[in-house]
Each structure stands twice: as C-alpha cells, then as structure tokens.
C-alpha cells in the first residue's frame, strides 16, 4: 500500500469514524442508562435516513436544514416505541428484552421493504464537491458530517455533565434505586435517555444523506458496528464511544484498502470479539473482569 493510499484511507476512516461515534453514542446512552441492548438501533437510523432522504430529494430541502425535523422526529419515535414496548419489559430477563428489540428491528426493516421496496436510494446534493489537501481527497459532505458529529457529541456530553437533567440521567444510569431515593424521577430519566439516544440518530441521518445511500437494510450494518464501538469504548462511556468510533472507522477504512474483498469487515468483528474476551469493560474501562 502506498503512502498516499494509506493517508487517503486514514482520513476517510477518521471522517466516517466521527459519524459512527455519533451513532454509537445514542446506543451507549440507552445501554448505559437502561441496561437494554437495543437491536433496533440501526433500524431507527434507517427510518431517519428515509425521512431525510424524502425531505432532500422530494421536497428540495438542504440536508442540514432537515435537522430541525429529523431530531424531534427521531426523539418522538424513540419515546413512543419506548413507552409502548420497552418500558413494560424493563424488569424482564435479558433474553426477553433482546428478543423484543430483535422483533422490533424485523418489523421496522420489513415495513421499510414493503413501503420503499428494496431499491437503493441516493440523494443528489451540492455537498459533493471534492476538496484536495495534498494527495488526500475528501468531499465537503463528509467533512461537514465529521465536524457536525463531533460537535453534537460534545454538546450532548456537556449537557449530560452540566445540567440538572443530565445529572439525573447519569444518576439513573449509575444506580436507579439510589437515584430514586435522591428524588430523581428515574422513569422520566429513562424516557429522556431513550429519546435522546434515538435523536442522535436523527442528527446522524441528516449528516449522512449527502454521501450515503438509503435502503431498508442499511441499518443492519450500522446497528452491528455500533455494538462493536460501544463495547470497545465501554458500555455507557461517552468519550470511549467517540474513541471507539474513530478506531473502528480507521480499522475498516484502512483494512478495506489493504485487504481483498470485504475482509475488512471480518477484521472489525475480530477486533470486537477480542475486546469482549480480553477487555469486556472496554479499552478504557477501569477495573476489568
């Protein structure tokens, strides 16, 4: 692999890694607070992407203007699905929760297949201009997506650290019972965490549409990769997820340049399994098992 090719792969990987981090932060928030693994996370992203695609391709919106719709829409979808399906089973065994969200993902994916057919859609926007820095070429859409994702991550992080609501959510994540005793409305915190975790996907959807295609199964890959990143960064660990996103983005991108076919995906899952085996609390987790 030449240096130029490596640099190109590295930069592409970092840019994509930012978006992956944002997607994973939604998942890690839900996982950390509710202790529920949402297997429908990728499908929520898919819904967001269809929404943004229609606003952009059919109604001529600027992709970044769609944020004012995609964020509240995904928040609302998250909240409704949480109230209807997740809240009733919060106390159930893990396998029930896993199967419920697996069921949700089947429903959402196949509903999309029925409504939108299996076609792969791509929105034409004016954010495809190539920017050249040395030998590296990036499109403006990817650069904006990266900056936007990092910005969104830090805004969310700041809110969680510095507002009362954020502290309430973090308290509920640490110990629900103790938080209740301290007068925190834990059930409200759960709702907010699920809503905000889903809203992250609204942001990601708006940022991705200028350079990523939409299809009913687009969420499958992102859902799985988000698990990889969350585990890598440590469950519920925000900055860990950010680092994990960048690591996986670069691994995939550089792997794709170096390995034949789609073997870089195998690399990603290999990293995942190794992390689970040797550092189950994540790369940055404190005391390991």
């Amino acid at each position: 692999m030449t240096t130029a090719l490596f640099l190109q792969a590295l930069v592409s990987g970092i840019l994509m890694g930012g978006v992956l981090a944002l997607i994973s932060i939604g998942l890690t928030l839900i996982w950390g607070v509710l202790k529920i693994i949402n297997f429908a996370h990728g499908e929520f992203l898919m819904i967001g992407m269809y929404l943004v695609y229609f606003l952009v391709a059919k109604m001529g919106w600027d992709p970044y203007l769609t944020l004012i719709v995609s964020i509240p829409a995904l928040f609302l979808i998250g909240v409704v699905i949480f109230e209807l399906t997740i809240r009733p089973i919060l106390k159930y065994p893990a396998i029930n929760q896993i199967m419920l969200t697996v069921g949700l993902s089947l429903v959402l994916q196949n509903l999309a297949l029925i409504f939108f057919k299996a076609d792969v859609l791509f929105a034409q926007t004016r954010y495809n201009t190539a920017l050249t820095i040395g030998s590296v070429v990036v499109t403006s859409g990817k650069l904006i997506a990266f900056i936007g994702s990092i910005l969104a991550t830090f805004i969310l992080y700041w809110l969680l650290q510095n507002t009362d609501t954020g502290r309430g959510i973090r308290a509920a994540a640490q110990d629900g019972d103790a938080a209740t005793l301290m007068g925190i409305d834990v059930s409200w915190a759960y709702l907010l965490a699920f809503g905000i975790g889903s809203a992250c996907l609204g942001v990601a959807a708006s940022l991705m549409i200028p350079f990523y295609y939409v299809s009913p199964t687009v969420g499958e890959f992102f859902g799985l990769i988000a698990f990889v990143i969350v585990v890598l960064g440590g469950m519920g660990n925000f900055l860990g997820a950010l680092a994990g996103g960048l690591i996986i983005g670069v691994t995939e991108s550089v792997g794709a340049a170096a390995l034949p076919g789609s073997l870089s995906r195998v690399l990603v899952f290999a990293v995942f399994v190794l992390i689970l085996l040797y550092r189950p609390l994540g790369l940055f987790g404190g005391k390991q098992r």
Partner: protein
Amino acid sequence: MKAVDRQVTFTVVLFVVLLFIPTFASQYIINIGFMVFLYAFLATAWNILGGYAGQHSLGHGLFLGIGAYVSTYLFVSAGITPWLGMWVGAVIAGVTGWFIGYLCFRYGIKGAYFALVTIALAEAAVYVATNIQAIGGAGGLEVPWKGNNFWIMQFGSRTGYYYVALVAAFLGVLLTLWIARSRFGYYLISVRENEDAAEALGVNTMKAKLMAITLSAFMTAIGGTLYAQYFTYMNPRSVFGEGPSVQILLFAIIGGIGTVWGPAVGALILVPIAEITRAELSGSFAGANLLIYGLILVLVMLFMPKGVLGILGSLGKGKKNSPGEIGHEPVGSK
C-alpha cells in the same frame, strides 16, 4: 406409567401418525410439514444451549451455514453423498462450537455479551464465506440435481424430504426428553438458574456448558445439510446471516424456551402462518413473512414472556406467567 414414559409414548405415537400424512396430503401441505420439522429440529438444537443451559446464542446461523456449505461442497467437488457430508459438517460445527464456547466461558462471557459474541462471529462468517471463491463467494453454492436417488439425499417429490426432516425432529425431541431427565440436563438447568451455586455444589459448569454448545452446534449443522438439500441453493447471507440465526431461535422463544416441546410447538404455530403469508402476499409485499415473525415476537415478548407453553403450563399450575421464574439475569447485571 411414569410421566416420562408417557411423553416418550406420545412422541412415538405422534411420529407414527405423521408418517401417514403424505399418503393423503397435497405437496403444499407436505412442503409446510417439511419446514415445520426442519425448524422444529433447529430450534430444538438451539434450545439445548439457549433453553436448558441458558446461554442465548444469536449466531446459530454460523453452524447452520457450516452444515449447509460443508456437505454441499463435498458433494459438488468430490461427489461425496450428503448422508456422509452431513456428519463431516456436524463434526466441524461441533468443534467450532466447542472452541467458541471454550473462549467465551473461559473468559466469563455470558448473558448479553455471549449473544453479542455469537452474533459477531456469525456476521464475520458471512464476510469470510463471501471472500472464498472455492465455495462460490457472494454468489453462493448450488446443489446440482442428480436425479431421484435416496443415497444422495435427493428426492423426486417433497415427500422424501418430509420423512428425513420428520425423523430428525423426532430424534431431536427424544434427545431433549432424555436430556430433561438426565444428570446432564440437571447440570444445564443448574447453570442457567444459578451458576455460582451450581459451581459451589460441585457441578462442573464449564464442562456442562461446553457439552451443550457442542451438541447444539452439531445438531444445527445437520439441519444445515437438510436445508441445503431441500432448497438446493445457499449464499453467505442466507445461511450464516442474522436472518437465519434469529429464525432458529424464534420458534424456541415463542413456543417456550427451556421446555421439551416448546421449539416444536413454536414451529408448528409459526411456520404455517409465515408460509401462508408468503404465498398470499409475497407478490405484492416481499418480506411480509418476516414482518409477521417480528410482530408476533414483539407481542409474545410483551404479553406472554414465557412463550406459548409457558402460558399453558401456568394455567395448569395456577401460576402467573411471570418471566421471573425463568431465572435469568437481566442485561448488564454482573
């Protein structure tokens, strides 16, 4: 007569009755029958690990794919009959399962993390298979038609496949009946209910779990060969992917996890529904059967968390159908 003997008698009688179905049923019914038995068998295999030992694998597609690919590859490239290739695939899957189990259990991976490891490995297998040209890459493998011949597991009508799957499901249920009453079965249940306590009482939990995953993987691969012979085509996504992995456990979960008959009951209820939906709607709605599966799964998890047999069992004993009695740990509690 003891309860277990009654159950064995019932199983044998049911088996004999089902042997006669093809004498009067249409090929359409026989097709549904085959699918019911195949999925009952696969879900029964999953149930040994997921239901009895309480280790919820979300990646059984890995073993299904190994079974399908190994027997088909041996058949296509060396002319080895699937009757033999089936056992080769099963042994390879068994060893793979043992190895995965060894790694996971050795490092204390359980609960949701075990589910994630298995799903990741199955997904990785999709990409590995996609990149091996000898087994057709992304295009997959086809089982060539060599004429109606029992010795290569190819039949001119669906009836032949029906009998093969029926025998598999029958043996699977008998095996589960035995496990449920054996020392091995009690070990598995003790692992599921409270691993630390089981360990303290002298149960070799590591060995019990390893036996469960090996047996489960072995059986799933046999189902994979049947799948390949019947559908005569496979590609990495269709056997290794998330779809088949979820389908396998769906029937066990909906029928009643950790029960002898749950997987079979789940398949008996769901497969006809899915097949009829597919036949009625697939023209206009591709994916309608998976949509139905998903909906049923969500509803069952919400309203009868212990599955159909869980509800029936609770009615009989006047207990509430609460999931707490299954005794698994919630996600994240370690």
